[in-house]
């Protein structure tokens, strides 16, 4: 099997700096991929374009991060092999970004919850001892600010719109809130990254974030997340739910069908 012999997938890394950047990159990649599913199918043509714009921003961020990782560590022959060929358990995105595009309420709430976290996460990179990473964060923060503005506007419109739209937002909130705790957990990889000088500890802003988000939700037709929601975790350590495998079967289709080729 010459093709298989020739083909080398992405290598493992033990460097906490790289591991943390892979997490950032996977988050952006998987959410960008999810949003790209809506391209051509948005509920209104203007909204279709807006979702595609966000998808472009996120996949662009992921691409910069993967490329930067490869300048520091030789994990793969190129960013595509690193991004598109790892087995499921080696993707380290949080569970939230892989949640499905149930409807526009789910999509906008997922975006709002993620982007408002991502803003804090990337602000914590601005003083990174890796100046390239800091520069990527600075560029991305402008895009993130737009994503928040767009998604927040629609969370408010849908939450405080009609009964149907509010019901859909309430459903989205009950589905998605469970995945927010994971994003702000100061797990071993965050702690290692803080120690390595990759990032400051943004998870300390969890309660500020909760306050900010809950204020918007309550403006949005009085939506409130359930107080005692049990938070579900795992994605950051490769323990995914049913969604990611299907995402990967699309995303990796070409790289795995025709290993090692140029496109």
């Amino acid at each position, binding site marked *: 099997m010459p093709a298989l012999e020739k083909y080398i997938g992405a290598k493992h890394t033990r460097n906490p700096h790289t591991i943390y950047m892979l997490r950032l990159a996977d988050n952006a990649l998987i959410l960008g991929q999810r949003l790209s599913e809506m391209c051509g199918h948005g509920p209104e*043509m203007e*909204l279709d374009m807006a979702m595609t714009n966000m998808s472009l921003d996120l996949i662009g961020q992921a691409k910069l991060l993967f490329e930067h990782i490869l300048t520091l560590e030789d994990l793969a022959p190129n960013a595509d092999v690193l991004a598109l060929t790892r087995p499921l358990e080696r993707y380290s995105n949080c569970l939230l970004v892989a949640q499905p595009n149930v409807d526009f309420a789910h999509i906008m709430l997922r975006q709002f919850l993620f982007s408002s976290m991502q803003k804090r996460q990337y602000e914590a990179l601005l003083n990174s001892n890796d100046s390239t990473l800091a520069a990527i964060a600075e560029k991305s923060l402008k895009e993130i600010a737009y994503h928040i503005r767009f998604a927040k506007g629609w969370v408010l419109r849908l939450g405080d719109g009609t009964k*149907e739209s509010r019901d859909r937002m309430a459903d989205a909130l009950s589905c998605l809130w469970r995945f927010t705790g994971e994003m702000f957990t100061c797990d071993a990889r965050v702690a290692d990254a803080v120690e390595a000088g990759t990032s400051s500890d943004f998870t300390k802003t969890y309660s500020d974030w909760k306050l900010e988000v809950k204020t918007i939700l309550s403006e949005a037709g009085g939506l409130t997340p359930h107080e005692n929601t049990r938070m579900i975790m795992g994605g950051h350590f490769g323990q995914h739910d049913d969604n990611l495998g299907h995402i990967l079967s699309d995303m990796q289709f070409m790289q795995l069908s025709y290993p090692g080729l140029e496109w």
Partner: protein
Amino acid sequence: MYSTDLRTDQEKKSADPQVLDDAKLWDTFQSRIDNGDVIEAKDDMPEKYRQTLIRQISQHAHSEIVGQLPEGNWVTRAPTLKRKLILLAKIQDEAGHGLYLYSAAETLGRSRDDMVADLLSGKAKYSTIFNYPTPTWADIGTIGWLVDGAAVTNQIPLCRCSYGPYARAMVRVCKEESFHQRQGYEIVTVLAQGTLAQKALAQDSLNRFWWPSLMMFGPSDSASTHSSQNMKWKIKRHSNDELRQRFVDATVPQAEFLGLSIPDADMRWNEERGSYDHGEINWDEFWAVIKDGGICGKDRIRARRAAAKDGQWVRAAAHAYAQKQETKERVA
């Protein structure tokens, strides 16, 4: 394609309004056109001119919107991050171009909702090319190379169309589309220069898309009834066959450069004409795809209907919210 009336004879008969423009309006209007005047939205114009443009521009807009779908089939599976970004940007451009065109058509007095309703009901047409499937990645290259190549050939003359809002929309579209054909040709080039398997993908895709691409320019001049009046009104600047020939002459050498063969045994250089002669186009297939939607027509319309249905509650919510905000402002 965009300047071709894709309705069947029967549909044309039942749809064409009994136009009661007075002869004087037609004469003064024609002399404005002959003087090279550009017609603007609120100018007097023959009803027939207005109707022709609404049909043509909306058909063009529908083609952009439906045209997102065959390529959208590959967004989630694009082989590299770079290709994924390019493809997303390109499909997004098409949505944008659809919107520019609906706006241009709306200046003639028909709402976008009504035009979209016609698309969803099957009353309005769009280019048949988008009813062909895209089973392999090579099709994304071929669509950019051939379909966008044909589109540009068609659209550049439309930048000088006599109706100002349409011409201006086309200027913007042509400017933005300049990268579409190139990215397609680049994809095909990589395949043609790749492994045997990749080259086979490219050739197979060319085989499938070549003839449908030629059909995009519409029926032969001898069979096209609407052409002469549209030429007189400068809605259309060149005949279908003339544009098709231009496309063939530009494309054949591009295929040769890649070592791909055009699936036409009768294709040869005609020294005398300084152009390529090509074989007979199967117009039965063209009309069949218009009538029954070909392989993908049903899926395309189902996808657009689903999007429209998803939009209903979103629009209703946005409307309710805006009204609440207005009330709040008034109270405050």
